[in-house]
């Protein structure tokens, strides 16, 4: 088991390097450097700035410096926010984004698996068709359409829930709409995926063995069929993480939530190069880390993988 862990861990390192290197190259090689914002500055100031940010050094030593900084958790200064470094901004926004993202992921898993299993067990009946239609709606209505509609209906018109904001971070009512908006597309994908994998699992011969052992339906479903049906969902968790992170940008924007996504959009709009690059690298690392966890989880759930 340990050797597999190590193998997966080292397998993730190239991906990390690709993310960092791509980001670095884009930062340094694309036309229009960070100080090329149209403001007229004297050559001396320009040169001083270049020196201050080590932009006068050869590219490779800049790269090494960048790697060294990252290794120390230093994402550099923000170009537009004078008072905060990129690291500080990320540290401030991440707890909020993490809470939002994890809640959405948990909701997507529970509701998606529930709907998918329900559909599979009522295959081709009206309730199954309702699940299919619901899943289709979640896939064709993107989060940036769904989030405003949810606000409009439940926040503005019905006044059931706050239409925006994050409260003081402990008020559940503020979290419901953003989490639902972020989870919906993932609920749909997981429902579709688990419905078809559950249908396939229920047709496996070992399910009939389980019934032949006299086990009640509940045990056959949750001990025997679920183990097989959940595997495709587990492999989907990687893309789902990327989707939730991407979606959180929109959701944080629509609901005015002070997470990383909001800083990211503001930074992109204001062309705050270091903050944008920092967030890309940071989220890249998060995704690599999560893919690693998913890989390991898959190995635990499917003995045929882990013992190979």
């Amino acid at each position, binding site marked *: 088991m340990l050797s597999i862990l190590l193998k997966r861990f080292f397998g993730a390192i*190239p*991906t990390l390097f*690709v*993310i960092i290197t*791509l*980001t670095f190259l*884009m*930062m340094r090689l*694309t*036309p*229009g450097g960070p100080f090329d914002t149209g403001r007229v500055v004297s050559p001396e100031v320009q040169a001083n700035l270049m020196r201050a940010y080590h932009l006068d050094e050869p590219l490779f030593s800049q790269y090494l410096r960048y790697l060294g900084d990252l290794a120390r958790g230093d994402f550099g200064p923000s170009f537009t926010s004078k008072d905060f470094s990129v690291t500080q901004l990320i540290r401030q926004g991440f707890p909020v984004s993490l809470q939002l993202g994890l809640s959405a992921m948990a909701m997507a898993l529970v509701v998606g698996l529930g709907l998918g299993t329900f559909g599979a067990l009522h295959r081709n009946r009206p309730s199954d068709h309702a699940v299919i239609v619901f899943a*289709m709606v979640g*896939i*064709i*209505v*993107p989060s*940036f*359409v769904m*989030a*405003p*509609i949810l*606000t*409009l209906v439940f926040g*503005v018109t019905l006044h059931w829930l706050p239409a925006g904001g994050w409260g003081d971070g402990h008020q559940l009512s503020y979290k419901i709409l953003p989490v639902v908006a972020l989870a919906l597309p993932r609920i749909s994908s997981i429902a579709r995926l688990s419905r078809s994998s559950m249908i396939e699992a229920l047709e496996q011969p070992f399910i009939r063995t389980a019934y032949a052992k006299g086990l009640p339906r509940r045990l056959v479903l949750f001990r025997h069929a679920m183990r097989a049906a959940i595997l495709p969902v587990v492999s989907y968790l*990687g893309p789902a993480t*990327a989707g939730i*992170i*991407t979606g959180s*940008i*929109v959701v944080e*924007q*629509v609901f005015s939530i002070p997470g990383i996504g909001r800083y*990211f*959009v503001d930074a*992109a*709009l204001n*062309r705050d*190069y270091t903050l*944008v*690059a920092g*967030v*890309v690298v940071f*989220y*890249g690392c998060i*995704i*690599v880390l999560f*893919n690693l966890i998913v890989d390991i989880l898959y190995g635990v759930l499917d003995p045929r993988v882990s013992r190979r």
Partner: protein
Amino acid sequence: MTADSGWRRLLRNPMAMAGLTVLGLILLLALFGPFLAAHEIDEVFWDRIGAPPDFAAGFYFGTDANGRDLFARTLAGARVSLLVGTAASLISLVIGVTYGAIAGYLGGRIDAVMMRIVDILYSLPFVFFVILLTVYVGRSLSTIFITIGAVIWLDMARIVRGQTLSLKQREFIEAARAFGATDRRIILRHIIPNLWGPVIISMLLVIPDAILTESFLSFLGLGVQEPNTSWGVLIGDGAQNMMETPWMLLFPGAFLALTLLAFNFLGDGLRDAMDPKE
């Protein structure tokens, strides 16, 4: 080959045909939008700021918060969305087909390394790289479809590689090689022309992806810039004004959802037609 029977199966699939019809209609609306709309996209009607739909005056979808005809703007958005979708998928086509054909044709270690790179890129949050690119390069329409195309060619490369691997074994490739054709010539003349079927399918899967990405960027204000418009821009405006003028959100949102639905039906139909399991 079963390609012929596959197309026939597709023509008999009502969902796929409905999707195709809807896409055709939206394409027509986009192309002939300027003739269908009663007003210009940037004409401001000061007496009708945020007005609801009014058929008599030709404001079928109402006006936006700046008093511009939403119908004309939605059709203009359709034009941009379809253009970005097609252009980005064409770019991903060029990159993906070249990359996949080379990897599949050369095989061995080179193939393994090239596909490992695709695997790595696959796990990256590509929307972030698009945003990163637009931040550095600027936000023109062409930047947007070039950057989107530059990041969504991975599926195409995988499919083309698989096809190339199997094509490589076929006799006519062997024959060409026996006659001393160069690798470059074999790839260009024999491999790529034989890849159309699967490539068209993956194009159809890439287009809605590209449309969605563009709308996403434009919604955030990172994509298409005023006075140009797109569904994402309109939805973004609509979201900001939804309390007073909900139609600004609903019409472009419905168009986007309908387009994605149509592509979904068509894509599912194509997949079933090409790979009939049941």
